């Protein structure tokens, strides 16, 4: 294939509305996931993101079995509920909070898989549906108009909230005790963070599927932290990194015919290696 051919193919695909939707949703989801990912990584809560993604899988299975027209309407509240339980209860459950999360996360996977098998969706095939929910294979290209608008709306709200509460997010993440001691209502903010994280994860189900969500959360933050050393620059860099990887991944998957989610994650990995190299070079200077 010569280069002219690639651009022609790309232009051809881009003229389709479903590809345009995929790009818009992909960018917004990646943007909000990278922003929240910085908070999760710095608070050592990445594993909670992973656990929640599996809960979202179980919820998706229930929604599919119950034949919801828009699965998000069930996935979102269930994921939010578990997110609040985990992020709030996590500190109180003294023994083995991480083991409890591991238990819940495989539990949700297993139950979801059983549900898909017991009540196969009409006209679908079980392994195809499971694969789509786990890896997001092609689902982003088949979003309904309603799902697109819901994703755009929620993604937009997440980004605006993050910008408005940026200073408080920093204070809470850097030293929650100090923030609480000086009068910040940290309980309320922690609950808000839990809700927003659950929202981002539910949105990301469509883009990359439940097994790959963690990648959208942690790769941008970890890559940015390799190179930058202030909070603001890490946040900005993570946002740019996440969006770029999503765009590159979506376009590459269209051209190469690979699964969207996995291709985005591959772009994330490539970016991480690049930033690690940059960080090492910068450190040497």
């Amino acid at each position: 294939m010569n280069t002219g051919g690639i651009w022609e193919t790309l232009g051809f695909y881009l003229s389709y509305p479903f590809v345009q939707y995929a790009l818009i949703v992909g960018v917004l989801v990646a943007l909000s996931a990278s922003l929240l990912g910085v908070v999760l990584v710095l608070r050592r809560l990445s594993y909670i993101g992973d656990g929640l993604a599996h809960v979202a899988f179980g919820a998706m299975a229930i929604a599919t079995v119950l034949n919801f027209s828009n699965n998000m309407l069930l996935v979102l509240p269930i994921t939010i509920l578990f997110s609040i339980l985990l992020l709030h209860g996590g500190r109180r459950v003294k023994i083995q909070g991480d083991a409890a999360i591991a238990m819940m996360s495989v539990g949700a996977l297993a139950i979801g898989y059983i549900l898909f098998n017991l009540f196969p969706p009409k006209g679908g095939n079980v392994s195809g549906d499971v694969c789509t929910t786990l890896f997001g294979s092609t689902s982003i290209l088949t979003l309904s108009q309603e799902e697109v608008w819901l994703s755009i709306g929620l993604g937009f709200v997440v980004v605006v909230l993050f910008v408005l509460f940026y200073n408080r997010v920093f204070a809470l993440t850097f030293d929650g005790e100090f923030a609480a001691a000086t009068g910040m209502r940290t309980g309320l903010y922690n609950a808000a963070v839990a809700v927003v994280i659950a929202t981002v994860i539910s949105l990301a189900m469509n883009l990359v599927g439940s097994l790959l969500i963690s990648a959208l959360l942690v790769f941008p933050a970890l890559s940015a932290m390799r190179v930058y050393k202030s909070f603001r620059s890490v946040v900005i860099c993570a946002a740019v990194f996440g969006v770029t990887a999503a765009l590159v991944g979506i376009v590459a998957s269209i051209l190469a015919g690979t699964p969207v989610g996995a291709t985005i994650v591959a772009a994330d990995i490539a970016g991480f290696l690049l930033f690690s190299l940059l960080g090492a070079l910068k450190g040497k200077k």
Partner: protein
Amino acid sequence: MALLTCENVSVGYEGKPVAEAITFAVNPKDYLCIVGENGSGKTTLMRTILGLLPPLSGKMTLEEGVRHHIGYLPQQSPVQRDFPASVREVVLSGCLSRGRGPFFTRAQKALADKNIARLNITKIANHCYRELSGGQQQRVLLARALCAADKMLLLDEPAAGLDPQITQEMYDLIGDLNQSGLTIIMITHDVGAAIRNASHILHVSRTPLYFGESEGYAQSPLGSAFLKEANP
């Protein structure tokens, strides 16, 4: 009217008391030092004063509206090893209780810069917090606390791990702050420094053994014994 009063307060975790029957009062412009053995519950008491822990029993009253005028320098902990934050970002975060809007106002930024200058860290204001020495980090956290404190400053072992000269500078600075009208509550291991600097001493054990003026403490059998033990 006292800024803070504790009547027969017990503090501890999950219903298990660490220190009991604590009674004392802090008036505006007081300089109270809390002393006692390791693990006697000094930090627990300070966290209770700050509202981070509920008192297990007894009555603790903080004067109305003071909560938003308190600064806090936590005990050093090895947290946040890889946290990306510049010195200025950390100090600015102390100004949050000074405003309600989403972004920092010019006044808040000026307050941060003033405290950065006061602690002599202007040159490193754009440096990465985690790459500083222990003494420098302590100064940054004190600048942050000062941004939040315009009535009361609580310090948990501010001199721990600092070399003698920096320690002396730290105590001088805290003394100056007290002179300029700030109420101080400080936890310290250094009983000698506590008696030299503070107006009041609270000696915490399972139960408090002494509360009163600093001079009386040095003369008391308990105080002189603890003093001898600390500075043989």
